[in-house]
């Protein structure tokens, strides 16, 4: 039974469906209207588009014959034709990306538009929701966004590019304001008028702000006043822009984005954890060996590393997994993980910034346009190393609820339990009045045994910590 993708309904030219498949699990098939079929057929014969697909900048796409079973089932929904896209391993949203990922996505968007313009095509929108990740490589997935560039039509996606890519990046780079919470609450981005309120006083002279925040904000204000004054809205149909000025603007924007960087004044709580953890060398090596042994035995398709930090264990897991989704709440740690994975060629790690006590909810129309993190795909294996005590103490989640949540992942688990006599736990609770009485080794084991089978265990730091391999208990 095919299911329509919750986020692909806005463009009337087509819709994406997930079609179950015996061999690959599921196929991603897009139904197209008659006019969209003609446009996509033309697009796919263009050398620039072939080159973008072969470089991996645009998702691999192929036309389907009407007698293909997947195409037939989609065309039964009323579409004139169908194309198939290569499936993306794990969907992510821009409010889960660290700074460097949004920056790379912005550069890809500009590069695609530049290539398209030079070949007589245009991208009709510019939103990071059209970009997904194959490991650390951004891939553009919304093929119907490419439309013929008719007679010098001006770039209508400029404002959207600024609101969803450039302004969030500038807020973080220039002012140190994290863009993730802003994009999570406003998926349409931060418009120039709103951004102008952040860039007051001398801040308005920071690089790119006068031209891409202050000037557009002022123009939009004036235009709104003018049009509300005479009640007429000016048509944009006859407005033209030369190829030269558009390419020059894209070049300027690419220079601006490439020059933006985010270097916090000091290190964050966790970005230096891999050098400053509390283990001795021997214990740390034993922990790595325990993780590697059990992951290599399972060879999971999808592995989640929850509380991944700078990715020491994500990289070990990546050697034996098809895809590793590495999640941590510390932006600096995740940004380091992304840059290191990108530079070292680890192409199967997707790093995400997320507070696990407040994970991404369902967003957009009826809460299904952008799926909640825990509703996208279940992992085959999850790593949960030295995380439970943080969620218990810092987020005040009772131990039984934590174990219930781990069971809900429906995956094999590798858990590290940090005992009450561990110096890191004592440090965490030293200024707390509560005693966290339910957080004991005995109670933890009791809760675990209700829902899991303990397949293997190993003590670390003379019994202060325990490594556990857990299989979900079907009777739970």
């Amino acid at each position, binding site marked *: 039974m095919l299911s329509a993708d919750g986020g692909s309904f806005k463009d009337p030219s087509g819709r994406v469906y997930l079609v179950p498949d015996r061999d690959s699990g599921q196929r991603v098939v897009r139904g197209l209207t008659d006019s969209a079929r003609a446009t996509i057929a033309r697009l796919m014969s263009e050398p620039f588009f072939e080159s973008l697909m072969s470089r991996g900048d645009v998702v691999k796409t192929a036309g389907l014959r009407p007698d293909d079973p997947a195409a037939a089932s989609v065309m039964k929904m009323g579409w004139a034709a169908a194309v198939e896209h290569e499936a993306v391993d794990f969907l992510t949203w821009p409010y889960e990306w660290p700074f460097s990922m949004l920056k790379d996505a912005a550069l890809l968007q500009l590069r695609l538009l530049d290539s398209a313009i030079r070949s007589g095509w245009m991208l009709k929108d510019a939103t990071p929701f059209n970009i997904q990740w194959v490991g650390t490589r951004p891939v553009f997935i919304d093929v119907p966004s490419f439309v013929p560039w008719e007679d010098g039509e001006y770039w209508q996606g400029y404002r959207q590019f600024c609101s969803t890519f450039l302004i969030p990046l500038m807020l973080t780079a220039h002012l140190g304001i994290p863009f993730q919470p802003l994009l999570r609450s406003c998926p349409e981005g931060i418009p120039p008028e709103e951004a102008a309120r952040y860039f007051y006083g001398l801040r308005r002279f920071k690089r790119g702000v006068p031209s891409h925040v202050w000037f557009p904000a002022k123009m939009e204000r004036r235009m709104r006043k003018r049009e509300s004054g005479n009640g007429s809205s*000016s048509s944009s149909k006859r407005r033209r822009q030369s190829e030269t000025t558009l390419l020059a603007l894209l070049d300027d924007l690419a220079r601006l984005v*490439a020059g933006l960087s985010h270097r916090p004044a000091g290190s964050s709580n966790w970005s230096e954890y891999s050098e400053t953890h509390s283990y001795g060398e021997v214990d740390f090596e034993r922990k790595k060996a325990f993780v590697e042994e059990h992951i290599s035995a399972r060879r999971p398709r999808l592995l989640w590393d929850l509380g991944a930090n700078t990715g020491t264990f994500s990289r070990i897991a990546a050697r034996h997994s098809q895809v590793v989704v590495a999640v941590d709440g510390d932006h600096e740690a995740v940004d380091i993980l992304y840059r290191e994975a990108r530079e070292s060629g680890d192409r199967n790690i997707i790093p995400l910034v997320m507070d696990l006590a407040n994970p991404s909810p369902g967003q957009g129309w009826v809460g299904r346009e952008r799926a909640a993190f825990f509703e996208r795909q279940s992992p085959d294996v999850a790593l949960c190393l030295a995380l439970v005590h943080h969620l218990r103490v810092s987020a005040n989640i009772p131990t039984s609820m934590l174990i219930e949540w781990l069971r809900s992942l429906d995956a094999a688990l590798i858990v590290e339990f940090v005992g009450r006599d561990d110096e890191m736990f004592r440090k965490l609770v030293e200024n707390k009045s509560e005693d966290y009485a339910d957080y004991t080794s005995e109670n933890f084991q009791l809760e675990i045994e209700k829902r899991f089978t303990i397949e293997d265990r190993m003590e670390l730091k003379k019994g202060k910590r325990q490594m556990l391999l857990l299989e979900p208990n079907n009777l739970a």
Partner: protein
Amino acid sequence: MSRSKLIALAAVSICAAYVSPTAALGFSGAEGMPSTTGRVELLLAYIDPGAAGFIIVSVLGFISAVGYTARSYLSRLKRFVFRGGRTARECESDERRCLEESGC
């Protein structure tokens, strides 16, 4: 491009930077606009805030084109001064490649 054309282009770019774009494009502001009455609020709800997009993109595109041209002539000048350097086209393609590599 001849030397006189280059000077003219530079002059235009300086003017473009100093003349208020809204004035240059003939906007007179919003004199006499009523305060936040229900009618105005209703009208505002129907106005696309991106309606200014064409003007913004045109002005920024023009300024970028001037900068782009100036950079390209600057690289030719450098080549002339230091002799034996690369051609402007080579410099341009190197810059583009550099940007792409820094991107991904």
